[in-house]
């Protein structure tokens, strides 16, 4: 029974981690809490659904395309909303409030277009196979989620660690001004970061759409709250922290539902967030940031 719970926790946790990855990337590089990340995640789900049901596309193709579309949307948001604020050197909270506006717009427009009710992938899209080992059950979807999430996480981690772009991004995270003076194309990398973050958010959206098979315009908000809890758990702006924080939250949630009560499922995330903020605001892996705001 415990092993089964662990599998469930791993699935949930890798989705949280994948979602939080983009979120933390934007904070690390741009220094912005992008609260439209949840809305973009939701659009990723719808996009895949649309491609699968209206264009009879294969699921993997649809996932790739919806990641691409979400990434482009992320760049558009960056260009139209965040860039003007950067240029004006707006105080810390302005971009956060502006992205709340973006999230409201995306959510409301999607609700207008797609309707408020839950949608699901057409029958047969999702592989029904499951693997049994003793009394352990692992569905193909669960496996795909864990594998895809881990591949994307490792790719991002390696890019950040070993490539020129990764080095440049880390330089920007230290100080955009110094990076600019060193000849790094800061604006270009900001766009790239926004693209990658939104694409990862979109991927998380598709995976969540698959695993719960209930897609609604409002699925972004609770996920966003979980994402906030995850990046605070792991340390804001820290990629490794987002991965471990995501897995940890998934674990904590599944265990509390299994062994305590399902009523307080959502309180687990925020209880954790609250405690971490009080005890160690920089998170499990974060460095102690100088106080900016």
């Amino acid at each position, binding site marked *: 029974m415990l092993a089964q719970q662990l599998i469930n926790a791993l699935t949930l946790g890798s989705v949280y981690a994948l979602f939080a990855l983009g979120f933390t990337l934007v904070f690390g590089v741009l220094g912005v*809490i992008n609260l439209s990340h949840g809305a973009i995640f939701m659009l990723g789900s719808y996009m895949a659904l649309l491609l699968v049901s209206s264009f009879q596309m294969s699921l993997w193709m649809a996932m790739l395309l919806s990641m691409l579309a979400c990434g482009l949307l992320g760049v558009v948001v960056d260009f139209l*909303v965040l860039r*003007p*604020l950067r240029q*004006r050197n*707006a105080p*810390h*909270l*302005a971009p*956060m*409030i*502006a992205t*709340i*506006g*973006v*999230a*409201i*717009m*995306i*959510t*409301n*427009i999607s*609700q*207008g277009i797609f309707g408020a009710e839950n949608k699901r992938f057409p029958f047969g899209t999702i592989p029904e196979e499951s693997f049994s080992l003793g009394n352990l059950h692992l569905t193909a979807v669960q496996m795909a989620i864990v594998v895809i999430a881990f591949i994307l996480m490792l790719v991002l981690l390696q890019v950040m660690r070993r490539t020129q772009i990764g080095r440049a991004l880390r330089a920007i995270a230290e100080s955009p001004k110094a990076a600019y003076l060193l000849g790094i194309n800061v604006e270009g990398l900001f766009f790239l970061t926004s693209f990658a973050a939104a694409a990862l958010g979109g991927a998380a959206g598709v995976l969540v759409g698959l695993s719960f098979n209930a897609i609604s315009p409002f699925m972004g*908000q609770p996920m966003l*709250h979980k994402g*906030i*809890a995850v990046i*605070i758990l792991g340390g*804001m702006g820290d990629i490794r922290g987002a991965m471990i924080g995501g897995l940890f939250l998934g674990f904590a949630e599944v265990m509390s539902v299994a062994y305590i009560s399902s*009523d*307080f499922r*959502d*309180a687990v*995330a*925020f*209880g954790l*967030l*609250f405690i971490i*903020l*009080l005890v160690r*605001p920089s998170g499990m892996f974060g460095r102690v940031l100088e*106080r*900016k*705001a």
Partner: protein
Amino acid sequence: MLEWWDGFWAIYSTVIFGIGINAMLALSIYLTLSCGLLSLANAAFMGIGAYTASMISMQTALPFPLALLAGAIMPAIVALIIGIPTLRLSGVYLAMATLGFGEVVRVIVLNMEITGGPMGLNGIPQKTEWWHIVLLLAAILFILARMRRSKTGRAFEAIKEDEIAARLMGVNVGGYKLLAFVMGASIAGIAGGLNAHYTFTIGPGNYAFENAVDILTMAVFGGTSNLIGPLIGSSSLTLLPEFMHSLKDFRLAANGLILILVILYLPKGIWDPARIRNFRKKLTSSSSGKVS
């Protein structure tokens, strides 16, 4: 004349009540913002006030003013308790912590017997009269206006501009922040109590993240550099839906767009005295230029 008024009141009283209550909420977040704190907990404090006042009205025979008073004190106590550790955080960390607190409150209310759980409380006696709102709003405005000109108000201003400099000048930063947080919670609680006794039904969904954002939007839209901003922000955003019936389903999207545009183009809100002064100066200088 009287008939006209009766008709008008029958149709628009809800909107007018809404303006008054939203004005209080916008002022509650203005108070914390004026001390440099972005708190997203005001919706939760509104909820605590609303539930406290309603439960007293429904389960005891205490008069309405006492219920309302409890609705103001309870959130203040909670704010005091969570404020002492939380307010050490700054900027986005504080915003996240208060957001987390709001969610915790929502989940607790959702799972308690006494609050009616997800069904909320129904049949709260309808006791809020229009003059209650006017009177309390006026009192809040009076207190805040006096505070702005006092030592406390100047301390808030100093903390908002530069916390470290303020601390070096001997300002008790932690104490003033806590004061702003607790007073803001109390004002939000009053608004909650008044609102609950007007709409006679409340639920945990009424005080969630979306509502915190609505309150923030009103304050940011109007401008938070003085007291007039939040009033203008709350009344215009409460009236806006009345003029946007044609947008129907996309009404909220318009709200989002407004929020973005204001942050981008009017970072200090629509009521920004400095900008208005500059504009006037430009007008007078250009017209005097023509004369000479």
